[in-house]
């Protein structure tokens, strides 16, 4: 939440003498407030804390984002992600609370969770940034210790935020309907979870389903970074859900012949970064009979976490030691782990347990455990602390996962190029399914391309309805509406696990097979997608996709319960803002401005006096050669 409209001089902090330059900004510089241009190696916690504490002299910070990832790690998230909303509280087991055993994100510097009184922007290192640097070098640099002379280069960063203080205050101000034009100042963070089942489940009849025992296969959809709208989340999010999507497709092919005796429920949770919004909502819905199944129907949970970087070709199976004290839970988990380990023999990956009593890493499964002890396993590529050095930062991108393509490839070629990462994920996939099944390597590679490099590609275009086609890749950040990753995963999952019945577009969009069908809409969801154009025409041939894919609302229960200071559920909201922009210009000295004002005022007063004098002596001045004064008017 930041204050708008400060004009200040830019002051690049160079690598050479950062301490001296910081002192200039914070203590000795003669023309505060200053706007700091920070090169990315200096974007660290100590420097940002100093700037935050001296914020009366700091008008803003512009960080120059590098073109390549930094060699050391950088994670603006906390060291113990979601520590208060997971399952490890003081009551559950004090030995495991607050990451006592394992600090999951050791490189975390917590910058994203500090409050700053000035805007912080990130700029790409390109021509515009070079102009800014040049402006500083031309006008603002102190020569031989003397202070720089006016006119100086100034920069203004505008990012006005409407909400202040905390969620309880801003939600209260949203609700006040006393004034003429009530203004919404903030919105709760929320989106939709995507879920599907291998066997159709009646979605209209909520609550417990008799004789239904499901295994939840979960993954996380979202990620964040310090800056708005750059949250690639390649290792933290994309690797997990792409693996699960590919597994869903492979299982569909396998289950054509033989149905597994347990239904698998694929769930993709949104909002997990912000205190488990999606999974806490799903568990809450299950507990209050608002979901198609309830917690008694859940047999176990298998979650795919961060699986993109695999040092030593190992995958680790994490389980919760506290719930495993219960013998039945223990038995189920043991069976699951044995299955997974058996399946991995003979493949290129080894699958192990961490080997010591360790709590679960931050995962959606923790919210299920908060409700009741359920057997479950979380698959990760790290034994204890994260191998991800850029957790929840803007550097967790395609480059980090080595999703790279040879240069000079067209987008079409890149779509089909099988990267190393895809192969890695497929191996993870292979052991996950307890039998060898056909998998589609090209699908995984296309998904990685679509989510990490370029969303607007030909394959994604075929899977979505026509009204979304022009917006692909451009859907902005929205609240309480469906975001682009959610939509894409929804259509992808439908394409990969559904079927294509031969029904008309009208029937398809009305959720029925034919005119008399009233039952299918409870079990299936029908989507009309635009498809591909056949080779000798430009008109796309749409078709209907029937699947069990549904969306479920992912809004924290705290907002339905109106408990804005809840410690059980996520209470994150996002402030509304006006347009975000910045500009640089040359600014004149204060003395010159005052002189201009003074001259203007002087001219005004002089002209007033002159007018008064002339008007009072008008008859004398203008009477020569005129009619005598007895003319009437």
């Amino acid at each position, binding site marked *: 939440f930041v204050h*708008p409209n400060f004009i200040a001089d830019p002051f690049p902090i160079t690598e050479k003498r950062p301490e001296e330059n910081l002192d200039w900004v914070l203590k000795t510089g003669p023309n505060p407030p200053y706007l700091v241009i920070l090169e990315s190696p200096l974007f660290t916690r100590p420097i940002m804390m100093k700037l935050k504490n001296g914020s009366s002299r700091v008008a803003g910070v512009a960080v120059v984002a590098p073109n390549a990832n930094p060699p050391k790690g950088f994670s603006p998230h906390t060291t113990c992600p979601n520590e208060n909303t997971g399952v490890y509280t003081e009551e559950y087991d004090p030995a495991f609370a607050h990451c006592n055993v394992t600090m999951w994100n050791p490189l975390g510097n917590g910058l994203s969770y500090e409050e700053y009184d000035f805007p912080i922007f990130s700029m790409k290192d390109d021509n515009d940034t070079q102009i800014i640097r040049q402006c500083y070098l031309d006008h603002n640099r102190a020569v031989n210790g003397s202070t720089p002379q006016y006119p100086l280069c100034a920069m203004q960063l505008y990012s006005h935020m409407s909400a202040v203080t905390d969620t309880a205050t801003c939600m209260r101000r949203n609700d006040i309907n006393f*004034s003429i034009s009530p203004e919404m100042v903030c919105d709760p963070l929320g989106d939709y979870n995507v879920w599907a089942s291998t066997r159709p489940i009646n979605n209209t009849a909520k609550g417990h389903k008799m004789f239904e025992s499901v295994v939840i296969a979960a993954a996380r959809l979202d990620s964040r970074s310090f800056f708005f709208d750059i949250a690639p989340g390649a290792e933290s999010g994309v690797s997990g859900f792409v693996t699960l999507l590919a597994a869903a497709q492979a299982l569909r092919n396998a289950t054509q012949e033989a149905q597994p005796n347990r239904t698998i429920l694929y769930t993709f949770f949104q909002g997990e970064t912000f205190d488990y919004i999606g999974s806490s909502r799903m568990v809450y819905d299950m507990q209050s009979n608002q979901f198609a199944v309830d917690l008694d129907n859940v047999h176990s949970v298998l979650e795919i976490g961060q699986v993109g970087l695999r040092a030593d070709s190992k995958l680790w199976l994490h389980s919760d030691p506290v719930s495993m004290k219960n013998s039945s839970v223990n038995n189920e988990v043991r069976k699951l782990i044995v299955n997974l380990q058996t399946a991995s023999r003979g493949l290129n990956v080894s699958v192990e347990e961490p080997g010591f009593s360790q709590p679960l890493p931050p995962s959606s499964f923790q919210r299920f455990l908060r409700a009741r002890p359920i057997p479950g396993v979380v698959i990760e590529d790290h034994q204890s602390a994260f191998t991800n050095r850029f957790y929840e930062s803007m550097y967790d991108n395609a480059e980090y996962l080595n999703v790279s393509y040879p240069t000079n490839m067209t987008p079409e070629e890149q779509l089909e190029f099988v990267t190393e990462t895809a192969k890695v994920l497929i191996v993870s996939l292979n052991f996950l399914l307890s039998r060898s099944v056909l998998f589609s390597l090209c699908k995984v590679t296309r998904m990685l391309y679509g989510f990490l490099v370029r969303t607007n590609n030909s394959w994604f275009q075929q899977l979505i309805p026509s009204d979304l086609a022009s917006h692909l890749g451009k859907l902005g950040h929205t609240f309480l509406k469906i975001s682009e990753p959610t939509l894409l995963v929804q259509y992808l999952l439908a394409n990969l696990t559904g079927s294509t019945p031969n029904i008309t577009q009208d029937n398809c969009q009305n959720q029925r097979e034919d005119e008399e069908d009233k039952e299918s809409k409870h079990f299936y969801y029908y989507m009309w997608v635009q498809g591909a154009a056949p080779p000798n025409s430009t008109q796309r041939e749409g078709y209907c996709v029937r699947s069990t894919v549904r969306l479920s609302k992912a809004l924290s229960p705290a907002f339905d319960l109106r408990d804005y200071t809840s410690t059980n559920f996520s209470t994150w909201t996002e402030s509304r803002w006006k347009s975000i922009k910045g500009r640089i210009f040359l600014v004149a000295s204060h003395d010159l401005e005052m002189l201009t004002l003074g001259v203007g005022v002087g001219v005004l007063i002089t002209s007033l006096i002159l007018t008064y004098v002339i008007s009072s002596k008008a008859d004398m001045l203008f009477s020569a050669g005129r009619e005598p004064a007895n003319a009437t008017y």
Partner: protein
Amino acid sequence: MNLERLPNEEKLSLCRKYYLAGFAFLPFLWLVNVVWFFREAFFKPTYTEQLQIKAYVKRSALGLLLWVAVLTTWITIFQHFRAEWGEVGDYLSFTIPLGIP
């Protein structure tokens, strides 16, 4: 309205009306009374009604001063402490500024 053209009784009644109306939480009427009738009450040659007018003007001025004092104190306190009063402050406000606590 030009007071020159009014007879003295009407001047007195006008002054009295403004004085009495100001008690309905309308201190501006007292301000008008003071400014308008100041010259009449203190700088014109004496006439019978002038004593009454003088009294009304003095009392209006007193009331005005009291109002100014009360309002200034309340406005200062409110502007300073509204943010700290939390919920109470919000419910007392008609428009709440955006972007600052």
